[in-house]
């Protein structure tokens, strides 16, 4: 049996990008490569301005993912919920595509009568439990995020508690932007365990610019690298099937 892998980028930010490529275009690029982009906007007491909000929504929409704006306090619960919902959404997309092949172009889960839909959902849930998952987390560390980094760390630890309870395998990787030298810094390389993040996080410094677009582009390259490395190791890249989304 071949096991599928879902690939997601999770962007945690509190405002607008101001450097480099258009993040919405980069998210669209990710979607083309079968990678979902989810965005969580973190508020303090203040409200995110209209422009920042539109960007957050735009990135998630063109990245085929989910966006949500929350106060820092609710971050932990939101991070795990968004990740899981996006998984279900992607899997539904896959099943919808299969249905279209069998039943014709107008078929989708929503068009099925409730009884049949229930059976399909059981399959989606089963898949969501067993599928392998790769999440690359992009953390905005620009000035205004400084106070929230502790909460972000806790939320990420919480995310690994949630996902590691699944039967499928998980791999996480964490990047921060802006980086110390370049636009993006790797904080944590691919690992199934997130615990080691605790020691790295306090050292993060915050910079002035917010290069969200370049960060997403860099994240895509990381996925590419991982993929080619894997195919090299297994000699045929075929036993690791990536599930691509089409909604």
């Amino acid at each position, binding site marked *: 049996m071949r096991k599928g892998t879902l690939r997601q980028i999770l962007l945690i930010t509190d405002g607008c990008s101001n450097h480099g490529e258009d993040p919405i275009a980069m998210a669209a690029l990710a979607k083309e490569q079968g990678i979902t982009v989810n965005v969580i906007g973190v508020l303090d007491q203040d409200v995110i301005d209209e422009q920042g909000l539109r960007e957050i929504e735009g990135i*998630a929409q063109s990245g085929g993912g989910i966006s949500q704006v929350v106060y820092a306090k609710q971050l*932990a*619960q939101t991070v795990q919920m968004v990740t899981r919902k996006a998984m*279900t959404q992607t899997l539904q997309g896959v099943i919808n595509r299969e249905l279209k092949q069998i039943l014709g172009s107008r078929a989708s889960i929503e068009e099925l009568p409730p009884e049949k*839909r*229930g059976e399909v959902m059981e399959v989606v849930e089963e898949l969501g439990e067993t599928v392998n998952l790769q999440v690359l987390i992009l953390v905005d560390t620009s000035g205004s995020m400084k106070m929230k980094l502790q909460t972000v760390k806790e939320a990420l630890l919480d995310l690994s508690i949630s996902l590691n*309870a699944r039967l499928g395998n998980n791999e996480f990787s964490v990047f921060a932007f802006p980086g110390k030298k370049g636009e993006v810094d790797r904080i944590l390389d691919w690992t199934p365990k997130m615990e080691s993040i605790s020691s790295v996080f306090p050292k993060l410094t915050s910079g002035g610019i917010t290069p969200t677009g370049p960060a997403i582009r860099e994240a895509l390259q990381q996925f590419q690298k991982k993929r080619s490395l894997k195919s090299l190791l297994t000699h045929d890249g075929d036993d690791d099937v990536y599930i691509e989304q089409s909604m």
Partner: protein
Amino acid sequence: MMVMTMYTSNNPCSIRIGTTIQGKWHKRRYEIIKQLGKGANGVVYLAKEGRTFVAMKISNQAAAMMSEVNVLKRFSEVQGVALGPCLLDVDDWVHPQEKKMYSFYVMEYIEGDDLLTFIQKRGKDWIVVMTLQLLGDLHKLHEKGWVFGDLKPENLIVAGAVPKVRLIDVGGTTIRGRAIKEFTEFFDRGYWGMGTRKAEPSYDLFAVAMIMINMCYPKRFERKENGREQLRRMISSHSYLKKYEKILWRALDGKYASADEMRKDLVQCMQQPSARVEKRRGKAARKFRLLETMFLFVCLLFMYVVYLYVQIL
């Protein structure tokens, strides 16, 4: 609990009171009476089908609704003892103005107070009674291969002339061995750093212990650095919880393999305090006897003084 601002497509739908909803597939008609509550995935309304009151959950997330329906169906397969509300209908509805499709399901309407309100109205004596009832239901649920997951007072309704606790909102119910689908931080052992989010009976039992704590501290509290130490302080400083300290800790530490085991321990612990009461009564009696003796002695002394006084005169 969660005051989230949703900027995504999953805005819960709002329906005006008095709207009549007709299902797309089964054509049954329901009149919306009022909103009962909001869950993570949708809104629950009180509705009327003909003359009977029903509860209707409606949402634009067809997928999430279907998995809840699946759970409710499983529950009704093993009824006899009602674990959740009975499922009456599942259907879709096209909003006439928005032209969008919503999914809904209709359940039996369980009328009653939520657990915390009930305890506030009827007193602390009911805490153990309700916990025992809950453990009984959970045991059955676990035996069928399910874990409730999002166990909290808001999801527990006390109904009937003879108060009986009922589980509502099955959105978090998960097959044993999988990852918990939905949870609320205060009742989640992962949040307190005291265990995994794997669906196993001990996950629910942790939540039961937290519900007992919540019944004594209705305001709840936030986790500080050392969650475990914080809970220890909260338990040992409350006279009611202190009595059940040992059991609470076994549940919090995941030492109970089944709900039945915890139930038995609670029953046993309930029977012990009666001995203590008797002891106290014994102590009081002894005190009373001492008082009696003193009183007699004083009386005699007084009479003797009077006697002497009379003699001297």
